Every structure is written in C-alpha cells, then in structure tokens.
C-alpha cells in the first residue's frame, strides 16, 4: 500500500487567500506552465522516498567521504571487514525490525546472543556445525517464546518483560557457563564467521539472506500483514479478527531465532563465547533498526533500511577505529547517533505543530503553552 501525497502544482507566487467559488473558474488561464522536471519533482513523494532509501543514500555518501578523508579505508580488505562486521548486529536487527514494526521490541537480545553463542560453540565442540546451528537457534527460539508469553499472555509491558528476561538470561548464562568462556576452532565451524566467497564475507551473505527472508515474511505472508496491522493499531487489528496474541508470540520467537543464528556467527568469528559477550548489544540493534527508517511507534518500516543502517554503523565504527579513536568514545558515538536518529522524528513533529498551531499530539503531549492555548481554542470554538 503506497502512500500518495498530493503536492501543490501551483508555484509559490500564487496568493494564499481563499478565493470565492465564482472566481475559481476564471483562474485556469492564469496558471503558468511548469517544465517537465518541475512536474516530476512535484509528483514524487519525497517523504516516502527518503524513508525507504534515505539511509542507503547516506551510507554511500559516508563511504565517499570516508574514502577521501581516511587513509586505509578505500581498499577491498577494509570493505570486506566492514561488511563482515555489519552482519552480527544485522541478523538480530532483521528480527528486531519485525518486532518494532509490530509495535514491540526486545531488550533481551544481548543476553540471548551471549547464551546462544556459548551453546553454539559448546555443541560445535561435541557434535559439529549443523547441530550447533540447530541448538543455537532453538535456544533463541525458546527465549523468544518466554518473552512472547510474558508480553502476550501475562500482559506485562514489553519493555519491562524483556528487561526482566535480559537479567534472567544473563544470570542463567553465568550459572551454566560457571563464568568460563568456551573455545573452539574447528575449521568447518569458524569458516562461517571468517571465510569469504569471492571477497564477500560469509556472515554478510547470511545477513543478506536473512534480510531477504525477513522481507519476504513481511511483504508476502499473512503473518507480515498481521504484523503491520498490529503495529498500526492494535485494537483495530484485534477487532478485525487478527490473532494478536499468537502473532505477538511468534514475533518474539522470530526475534529469538534470528538472534540465535547471529550468535552462532559471532561465536564462529571469535572462536569462543562466554557470558558478558558484547554488552550494549541491544542498544546497537535498536539503533540500527530505528536508523533504518522504521518508526518506533510501529506500523511502518522496511528491511532495506535496516540493512543499510547496519552497514552504516559498521562503517562508522571502522572509520573511528582507523582514526584511532578511543573505544569508550565509540560507545558514546553509538548512543549519540541513536538519539539523533530518534530525535528526527520528534523534531519533525515539533515543526509540524509549530506550523499548524492546532495540533496537540496525544502521544507526546509535551508541547508548551502554545499547544495548550490551541487546545483551549478548540474547546471554545
């Protein structure tokens, strides 16, 4: 369903006052002809284009700038490294995109990833690659099932439920592993995290496949339609017959499955896995999804944006590394970028309010006196 926004076709020199109906018919001869370019520019829905492809464009621009400004960036080996690094956050971000479009999110992906990575490495040591993959994905799915049940059946808000699960899984990981890291460097296992096919890293290929799978789930299945419906308006979807609880549980299971897969890749990459693996991971994942254009409120989003945003984050980290920036400063930068990405939505809202003077947003009714005055005007009209 594409959103078509009507644009003004009259140039700005037209007077803004309303004309009485009787004079409108004589206006036709006064409208000047627009050039073809101007008409195309007017017809295009720039907001939608920016939402879908904006991040991809920004990524390419950043690549150009980085290639010129940072020595050591513009070579094949570095690009391979960037693409590979984007995959570990990216695979989880694919699942998180589905969750955020559905209107929820999952703060426990970091802890789940640590647990699944350890499971993958331990099982790979004993039984080989494919059982490791199955085990990691299964554990992720189980955690997702718990999350989904807590949110959909017990009706705990997603934020708190996944926060609690995060600490539970963290503690469980420490207990199961006894604080030890598991290591394994079998060739067929670490191939998944470190090898390349024709200069394209394997994790990135897996990431792209997951993104395609996720996009197919969103756009080509009934489940995907349900996800968009629940994200847009949960009550309306419920009344329309969407099985909200089942879909919500399945969304969390999907997040868990993708996180498990990403965890196996990470374990393969690092040759090891243990508790406390990559703290702050959940923030990176959410930042990737939000930066990719998916609105946090739900109901809109695209997988392409997530892929581009994952690559953008990896590029950012890479550029900071090449410039020998402190590791702590990098974490600050990630947080800042997330806040920046989120504030675009809020700033746009404020601008719209300022121009219209009549909008009182009930979602974040934090305007100042101006909006309150406008609201009182509505009552006394």
């Amino acid at each position, binding site marked *: 369903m594409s959103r078509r926004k009507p644009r003004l076709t009259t140039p700005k020199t037209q007077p803004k006052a309303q004309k009485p109906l009787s004079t409108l018919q004589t206006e036709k001869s006064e409208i000047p002809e627009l050039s073809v370019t101007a008409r195309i520019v007017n017809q295009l829905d720039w907001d939608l284009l920016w939402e879908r492809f904006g991040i991809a464009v920004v990524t390419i621009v950043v690549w150009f700038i980085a290639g010129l400004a940072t020595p050591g960036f513009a070579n094949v080996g570095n690009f391979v490294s960037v693409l590979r690094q984007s995959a570990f956050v990216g695979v989880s971000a694919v699942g998180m995109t589905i969750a955020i479009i559905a209107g929820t999110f999952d703060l426990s992906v970091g802890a789940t990833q640590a647990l699944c990575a350890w499971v993958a490495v331990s099982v790979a040591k004993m039984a080989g690659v494919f059982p490791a993959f199955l085990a990691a994905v299964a554990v992720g799915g189980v955690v997702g099932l718990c999350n989904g049940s807590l949110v959909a059946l*017990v009706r*705990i808000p997603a934020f708190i439920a996944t926060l609690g699960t995060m600490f*539970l899984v963290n503690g469980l990981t420490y207990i199961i592993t006894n604080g030890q890291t598991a290591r394994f460097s079998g060739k067929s296992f670490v191939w998944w995290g470190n090898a390349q096919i024709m200069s394209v890293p394997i994790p990135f290929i897996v990431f792209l496949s997951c993104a395609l799978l996720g996009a197919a789930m969103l756009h080509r299945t009934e489940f995907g339609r349900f996800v968009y419906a629940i994200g847009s308006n949960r009550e309306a979807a419920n009344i329309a017959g969407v099985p909200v609880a089942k879909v919500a549980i399945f969304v969390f299971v999907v997040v868990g499955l993708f996180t498990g897969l990403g965890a196996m890749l990470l374990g393969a990459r690092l040759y090891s896995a243990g508790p406390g693996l990559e703290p702050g991971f959940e923030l990176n994942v959410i930042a990737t999804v939000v930066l990719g254009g998916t609105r946090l409120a739900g109901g809109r989003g695209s997988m392409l944006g997530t892929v581009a945003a994952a690559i953008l984050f990896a590029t950012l980290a890479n550029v900071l590394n090449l410039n020998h920036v402190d590791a*702590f400063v990098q974490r600050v930068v*990630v*947080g800042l970028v*997330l*806040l920046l990405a989120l504030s675009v939505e809020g700033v746009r809202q404020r601008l719209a309010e300022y121009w219209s003077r009549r909008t009182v947003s009930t979602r974040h009714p934090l305007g100042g006196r101006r909006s*309150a005055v406008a*609201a009182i005007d509505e009552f006394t009209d």
Partner: protein
Amino acid sequence: MTRFWKDGSPPQAARPTGPGRRRVATSQVGLMLLIVGAVFSVLAPRFLNPGNLLNICTSASVVAIVGLGMTLAIASGNFDLSVGSTAALAGCVTMSLVQQIGVVPAILAGLATGAAVGLINGLIVTELRVPAFIATLGMLTIVRGAALIYTRGRDIYLYGQTQYKILSSGFTPVLLALAVALVLWFVLQHTRFGRHILATGSNPASAQRVGVRTSFVLLGVFSIVGIAAALSGLILSAQVLTGNGRLATGLELSAIAVVVLGGTPLTGGKASILGTLQGSVLVAVINNGLNLLNVSIFYQDVTLGLLLLAALGLAASYHRRIKSV
C-alpha cells in the same frame, strides 16, 4: 464549562490518591518481608547479627534512594534507565575532586553532575520527543562512556581520605534514605508540584489541557532522579573509596524492581513511597540471605529477574480481574 455536563454540574471529585490506596500491594510486600526474614534467620544463624543487619540496611538504602527517584519518574509516566551510569559518573567526579576542593564541595559537585545528566534526559524527552525509555537507554551508554573517558578506564583511589567515608559508614546511608523518602513523600502529597507529577503520569494530554506545564514537570522529575542517582553513586563509591567507571552497572534494574515490588503501577499516576522502601529492604534481605547461604552471586540476578516478573504478573492479573468486573 458547566454546559458540558449533562446534569449541569461536574461529577464528584475523585478520592485523593496516596499511600492508603495501595494498601493491598504494600501489605503483601511487608508480609513477604517477614516470611523471608524468618526463613533466612532460621537457615543462616548469622543473619540476625547486628553487623549483618546494618549491612542489609546500608545496601537497602543505596537501592532505596535510587528507587525513590525512580518512583517519581514512574509516577510521572516515564522511566530512567541511565541511573546506574549517572551514579558512576557522579562517583568518579566527586572522587577526583575531593582532594582538590574539599569533601563538601566535591559532594555538591557530584550531585550537580547528577542533576545535569537528569536535566539532559529531561530535555531529550520533552524537547526532542524521544520516548523516555529509549532516550535514557541511549543516555545510559553515553554517560557510561563519559564516566569511562573521565577516569580513562582506571580507578581513582583516595589514599587515607577517611573524612569522605562518613557517607557510607554507620547509619548515614539509612538516615539519607529516610530523609529522601520524607522529602519526596512530602513533595508528592502536599505540594502542587507533586500533584502535577501525578497528573502528568495519569494522563498527560488532560493534564496539559488543564494547565499543567508538563515540560517543566518532567524536567524537574528527571533532575530529581539524576540527583538521587548521584547520591547513591556517592554512597557506593564511599564504601570502597574508589571512583570506578564501571560502578553500579545494573542499578537501573534493581531500582525498577524495587518500585514495582512496592506496588507503584507502571502506568503512572500513583506513587507509593512506603512500598518502595519496603521493596528495597526485601531485595536487600534476599541478596544478603543468599550471600550468607553461599549461593552463587549469579543466582541473585536470576532471583531479581524472577521476582520482578512475578510481581508484574501478579499486578497484571489483579488489574485484569478488576477490569473484568
């Protein structure tokens, strides 16, 4: 305005909210406290040791102070996930300044740091319209990074500086916690600002239409949370006389758990100071008891998570039963 009401007059004013309304939930916490305390005192004889009880009170006070600030935030309808990082930053700042400008100015500087972080949180939420939990999630990383950058990843140790230790020795933490509780209770019950906080939490749109300056209220709330977090950080760093960038990781979950256990609903509009105090004592008792029984420290995380989810599940089913009537 009277022409809007069918009968010609507005309906009766609702009963005022306050600790009395939450009596059901808080009595559950009190009961659980007694049971758990009794169990531990039977299982571990050292539990009733006065030194041990003081330990419990101290650790309860630290979580209580942050939890009280968090109660205010939750009552206003928002969360603050950055309290742990704020505590660490305030601790580091104070530690680095004690030897230069003296104890009391350093403490004030630490509290001011907390207020500044809280103010930034509030500005992000009110001006940039970023949802509170995501904004504070981002600030969590930023402030933690700032603390680590400030200390350059190393510890700041105060040699022979015993004057500062008074913050964490003896009954001072307990007194501080009780003082904070009294002040916040007074603010919530008897000041206009407190009523505005509860109004904002209950229904922000309506509060704004009635004339409550939601932006300023939220700025104030987040600043108070920041100051409370800073105070906890100061006590924590005084316990070991070290300023560490990794201090108080996970404090935010303990704070939220304590508030939830105390009976304050997460949807906002009601606050239970007494409940938060009881919740923090309960959590401290459980942690201490598990320690005495030589249970692995990782089980404490699991226990906290389970407690939180159980309390929320109970609260959710309680509300559903009420709604279905």
